[in-house]
């Protein structure tokens, strides 16, 4: 890792942060947090991340995990990817934080303090698989624009909070409600206070699900700053950008929400399939909803050398957006034959499932272990990179690891 800094105005602030901070932005707020300057802070220390995490971009922070770091059944903060679209909020005052519900389709707008939400509504805990819509973007050809995510923009943590549905019922929603859109406390990279870095949402049917939460806790602790402290919308199984961080408002809309990154080509794919490299007009791009079926081999790490005759124990996770994974298989002959793995039920709807298998290799040599999940609609993961799309979303191609069997 480079630990050199470019001497600019912002570097000054950031050195101050380095000075003042042996702070893990985990559970409490860092005292001397200077967002502009974070580019010279050690992100591993600052965000409490595992040293094998990969920084794709340091302004805004985009940090990805790797398959072998995601082995836990419930992902710990250290292995959770960060996708920021703007500058993280600073000086968060939990005591005065509010969330305002407004929009065309609320009966009247209403503001709640965090304390109101916590005390007025029943709290629930669910695991949720959150995957960036662009996870796997790096494999598209021709290349697709944006952060070049490999495998690691996915995780399954446990969230505790109140049901969005309960709060919406308390606010009072008109019959013409179609969509919700969130607003948040992060700020635009250009510094323009009128611009929102991201303001996405989901149809009412998703907003009203039991598992859709306004969460205060991740894995039983206050949500870390980089993951949305003090309150995050959780909508598992959909592109993780629907699960807005640092929520300050929810607009209930009488039309599809038109906030930043809802329109154009953001988090959209061609409504009808296109040849690689095709230019697609905005009207022909459709919003991504449920993420596709996918899986990861999280043990062993790719590159293992195994003694001949020894069985290899593999394990990992599989998920299928709104649906369930019903079958998990592996192949060591590039898909010529597949063998079924043991697969667990999800802890709750929208949580990833765990699989394991014992693999025997017929002879010494180079192998790849490929994993393939099938969802409850009968859809399987493709072995090749699926349908090209301008922004490189929804690559659910099979994960594989390299193994050598030694003589």
């Amino acid at each position, binding site marked *: 890792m480079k630990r050199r800094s470019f001497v600019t105005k912002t570097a000054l602030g950031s050195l101050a942060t380095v000075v003042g901070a042996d702070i893990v932005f985990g559970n409490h707020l860092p005292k001397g947090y200077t967002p502009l300057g974070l580019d010279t802070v050690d992100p591993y220390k600052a965000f409490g991340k595992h040293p094998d995490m990969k920084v794709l971009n340091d302004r805004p922070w985009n940090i990805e995990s790797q398959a072998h770091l995601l082995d836990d059944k419930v992902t710990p903060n250290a292995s959770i990817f960060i996708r920021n679209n703007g500058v993280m909020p600073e000086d968060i005052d939990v005591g005065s934080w509010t969330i305002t519900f407004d929009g065309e389709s609320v009966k009247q707008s209403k503001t709640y303090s965090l304390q109101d939400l916590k005390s007025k509504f029943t709290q629930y805990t669910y695991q949720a698989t959150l995957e960036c819509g662009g996870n796997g973007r790096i494999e598209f050809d021709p290349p697709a624009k944006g952060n070049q995510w490999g495998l690691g923009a996915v995780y399954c943590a446990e969230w505790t909070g109140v049901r969005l549905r309960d709060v919406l019922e308390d606010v009072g929603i008109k019959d013409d409600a179609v969509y919700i859109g969130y607003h948040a406390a992060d700020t635009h990279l*250009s510094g323009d206070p009128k611009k929102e870095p991201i303001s996405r949402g989901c149809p009412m049917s998703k907003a009203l699900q039991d598992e859709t939460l306004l969460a205060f806790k991740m894995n039983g602790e206050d949500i870390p700053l980089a993951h949305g402290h003090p309150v995050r919308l959780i909508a598992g199984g959909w592109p993780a950008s629907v699960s807005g961080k640092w929520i300050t408002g929810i607009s209930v809309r009488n039309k599809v929400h038109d906030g930043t990154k809802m329109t154009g080509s953001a988090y959209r794919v061609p409504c009808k399939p296109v040849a690689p490299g095709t230019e697609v007009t905005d009207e022909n791009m459709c919003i991504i909803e449920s993420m596709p079926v996918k899986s990861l081999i999280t043990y062993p790490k790719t590159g293992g050398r195994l003694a001949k005759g020894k069985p290899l124990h593999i394990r990992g996770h599989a998920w299928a957006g709104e649906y369930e994974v019903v079958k998990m298989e592996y192949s060591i002959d590039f898909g010529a034959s597949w063998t079924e793995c043991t697969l667990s039920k999800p802890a709750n709807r929208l949580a990833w499932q765990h699989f394991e298998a014992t693999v025997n290799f017929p002879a010494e040599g180079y192998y790849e272990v490929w994993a393939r999940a099938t969802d409850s609609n009968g859809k399987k993961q493709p072995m090749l990179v699926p349908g090209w799309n301008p922004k490189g979303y929804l690559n659910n191609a099979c994960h594989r690891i390299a193994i050598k069997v030694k003589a």
Partner: protein
Amino acid sequence: MENPLQSLLQKLYGLLLGFFAILIAAGALLVYVATSPDPFGMNTPEVVIAETETEEVVDPDLIENGVHVASGLVEGEGLMTVVQNCTSCHSGKLVSQNRMNREAWKHTIEWMQETQGLWDLGNNEVIILDYLSEYYAPVHHGRRQNLTDVAWYDLE
């Protein structure tokens, strides 16, 4: 994960709590530290680093092994125009991660101008597009690549 500058500054910080302003010169490094009027450190102290030749603070023009160290962008005609126009909102890493042909780079710039507050680039647009389409052109790798860069290790 410590580095000498960071640990030095941390020590200084400890010494400086409670003071309003202190000027320190240490070796080639000149550090001005002015803490906030709040002696209990509730606000961030300001630290000003003057020009130095240390390893940690990089000359904004430094090129090493064909790479502009401060931005991570490759050396080439038009580099500094790109650095000046393309690394103020986001880091150069968002530029260097991407590979596009000239037309797609132009569309990306237009998208940032329409939606993200990027300014009119005037005559610099041609310089920037020349640079980007030369050094950050698409690389084709087909529908699935071999597994590369595998770090081999012994199991058990």
